[in-house]
């Protein structure tokens, strides 16, 4: 499979038929992000809206998928219901290896199934199965039903599915991958819902030759030892990402109660340690990752009032979801956080977006802009029971208010007021009130993700206000990340997969041409992605930062409004120049 051709499965959901296309360009598009951009250019239309059924939904893996540790992610790409522009969202689970072992570099879904359906693919199967009975089914139940509908290959397949939020077209609807992972941000769930796809089963039943050279297994062993025997990734193995809660709170950088504060002594209730001590049941891993950063806690519920009868459910947790439904909502008990996350898993909403949206709705209630008529339950910071109900309303779109809020916090604020305190940076903020650089970076970032660039870590290391240095850092940091998301590596492994290491990996697996050209390719892919973003309507000047972000104080002191504004306009300009420059 080392020729220049990508092997792509195209499925026309309208007819239920598909075909394998061999698409040239591997040596320049690499895979993952680069391949997704190539496929959107080929099959997508920049102008038609996201919900035009001809718009593609793309899943892409990379040249190193499954061949090295933590090369375990899949890139999904689509025109987003959130902003009607091109975007990517990434997830792991077993999706990446399943697609690779099914024999494909990418899957492209076009058209719309006649009725709600599930798609089942493998190296020798393509089946679109009517599933009208799954309408309104939550994502966890959908997974169980799909296991019964499609037998065999247990453990060697991946199951993607949506919940109610995707079916009702929420721009915060995510796609659940193998129960504990998600294509979270920017509404991929609604794209599948619009295509009448409730679930996708990818069976990784193929068996392929390995690169024939002695260097490959040796290099594998070296990387495996780096990720397991050194401290490089120990953080993710130990407490996992929730270790950051305490450190960010200490740095006055953890958003609390709709970003009215950046630190609070109540952090004690929701630290990574507290989650591990109280709630951690076990860990999990994406296929191909020995680090196993998935932390699975539990919620226990007494269901008989008089007698001691309990049920329990397992709920995965991470830094971002804990910030979003914990500190951001003033919920400071571990089990309360997990209870809210459990509901979000079912309705299949992106936890970050939903938490931040509900935080805004709570403050809007406090200020009298919203009443019970809209929110249906009394929203109060810290009141987990109400947030569980509100999460359900938001996911199912139970009234006009929640349907609008599902299109984004600013969409609701434009109608009800309160846009000044909507914590939106291109999309609902990630959990880093680290300072000006991060705010500008997320607001203008390609995916509006904290992982687009290392803005949050730059803030934590630099007190000086040097616009040029900060913007140059953001610009220089991006192409390397594009390379990783083209391979497709987990970004937690970025310390291991330096450009030199990636080159070595490509060399021993039969891609010497890519290996010799990585820097230029990262730059090229970065540019291609931004071109698509601009072609689908992105305009950095149209993105404004709500006032709340100017009122924040971090370890560096109060936000410097002039610095933030200059950063934002300079960063926007430099991104625009990237796209416009010749070549």
């Amino acid at each position, binding site marked *: 499979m080392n020729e220049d051709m990508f092997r792509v499965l195209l499925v026309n959901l309208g007819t239920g038929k598909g075909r394998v296309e061999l698409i040239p360009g591997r040596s320049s598009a690499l895979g993952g992000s680069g391949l997704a951009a190539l496929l959107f250019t080929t099959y997508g239309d920049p102008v038609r809206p996201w919900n035009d059924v001809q718009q593609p939904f793309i899943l892409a893996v990379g040249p190193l998928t*499954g*061949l090295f*540790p933590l090369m375990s992610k899949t890139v999904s790409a689509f025109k987003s219901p959130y902003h009607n522009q091109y975007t990517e969202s990434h997830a792991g689970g077993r999706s990446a*290896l399943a697609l690779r*072992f099914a024999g494909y570099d990418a899957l492209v879904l076009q058209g719309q199934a006649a009725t709600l359906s599930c798609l089942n693919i493998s*190296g*020798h199967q393509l089946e679109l199965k009517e599933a009208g009975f799954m309408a309104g089914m939550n994502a966890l139940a959908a*997974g*169980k039903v799909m*296991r019964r509908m499609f037998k065999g290959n*247990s*453990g*060697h397949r991946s199951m993607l599915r949506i919940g109610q939020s995707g079916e009702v077209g929420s721009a915060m609807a995510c796609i659940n991958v*193998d*129960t*504990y992972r998600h294509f979270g941000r920017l509404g991929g769930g609604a794209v599948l819902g619009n295509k009448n796809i409730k679930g996708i089963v990818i069976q*990784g*039943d*193929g*068996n*392929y*030759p*390995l690169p024939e050279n002695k260097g*490959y*297994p040796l290099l*594998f062993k070296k990387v*495996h030892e780096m990720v*397991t025997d050194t401290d490089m990734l120990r953080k993710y*193995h130990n407490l996992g990402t929730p270790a950051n809660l305490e450190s960010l709170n200490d740095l006055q950088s953890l958003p609390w109660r709709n970003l009215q504060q950046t630190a609070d002594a109540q952090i004690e209730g929701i630290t990574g340690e507290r989650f591990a001590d109280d709630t951690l049941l*076990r*860990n*999990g*891993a*994406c*296929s*191909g*990752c*020995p*680090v*196993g950063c*998935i932390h*699975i806690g539990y919620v226990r519920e007494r269901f008989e009032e008089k007698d001691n009868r309990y049920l329990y459910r*397992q709920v995965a947790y991470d830094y971002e979801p804990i910030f979003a439904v914990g500190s951001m909502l003033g919920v400071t008990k571990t089990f309360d956080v997990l209870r809210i996350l459990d509901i979000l898993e079912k309705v299949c909403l992106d936890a970050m977006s939903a938490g931040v949206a509900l935080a805004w709705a709570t403050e809007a209630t406090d200020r009298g802009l919203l009443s019970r008529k809209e929110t249906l339950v009394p929203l109060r910071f810290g009141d987990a029971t109400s947030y569980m109900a509100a999460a359900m309303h938001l996911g199912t779109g139970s009234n006009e208010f929640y349907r609008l809020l599902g299109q984004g916090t600013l969409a609701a604020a434009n109608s009800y007021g309160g846009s000044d305190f909507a914590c939106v940076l291109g999309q609902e903020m990630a959990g880093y009130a680290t300072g000006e650089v991060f705010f500008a970076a997320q607001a203008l970032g390609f995916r509006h993700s904290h992982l687009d660039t290392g803005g949050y870590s730059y803030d934590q290391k630099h007190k000086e206000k040097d616009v040029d240095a900060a913007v140059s850092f953001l610009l220089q940091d991006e192409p390397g990340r594009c390379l990783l998301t083209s391979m497709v590596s987990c970004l937690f492994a970025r310390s291991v997969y330096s450009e030199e290491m990636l080159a070595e990996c490509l060399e021993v697996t039969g891609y010497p041409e890519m290996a010799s050209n990585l820097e230029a390719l990262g730059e090229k892919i970065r540019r291609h992605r931004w071109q698509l973003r601009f072609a689908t309507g992105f305009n950095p000047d149209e993105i404004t930062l709500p006032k709340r972000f100017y009122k924040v104080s971090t370890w560096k002191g109060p936000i410097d409004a002039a610095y933030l504004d200059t950063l934002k306009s300079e960063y926007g300009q430099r991104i625009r120049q990237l796209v416009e420059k010749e070549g």
Partner: protein
Amino acid sequence: MKILTTPHMDRCIGCHSCSLACARLVNKRFSWEAAGIRIESSGGLSSGFLAKRCLACDPAPCVAACPTDCLRQRPGGGVTVRRKLCIRCGECIDVCPVDAIAVDAAGDIYVCLHCGRCVAFCPHDCLEMGSAEIQNMEGEL
């Protein structure tokens, strides 16, 4: 001779490092299936994992079923494989009581040789080279 045992599957995180190692190092393949040990979820990811692998019978029914001497009894239990002799009849697959022998679309079989090469790749020490008696008494499967 020691055999591969899986005494701590209750620690398994489903990373597939073991199966990928077996496929890569023993069978020289890139696959989840072409491996002596295969990790299945026991009914969805929320209920844990089990390892499908050879339990090292002695005498081994798969050896008796093999018409060509491709599979031979391994001292200590299990089998040795002479790939060149395999005629892809599939007889061994059906007689194995624990579904330990995998087969690919071409009819090639993959079974654990109890070499132990996968053990070092498991991040949670789920796997050990040990004895069949202890495995059956104390271990998880």
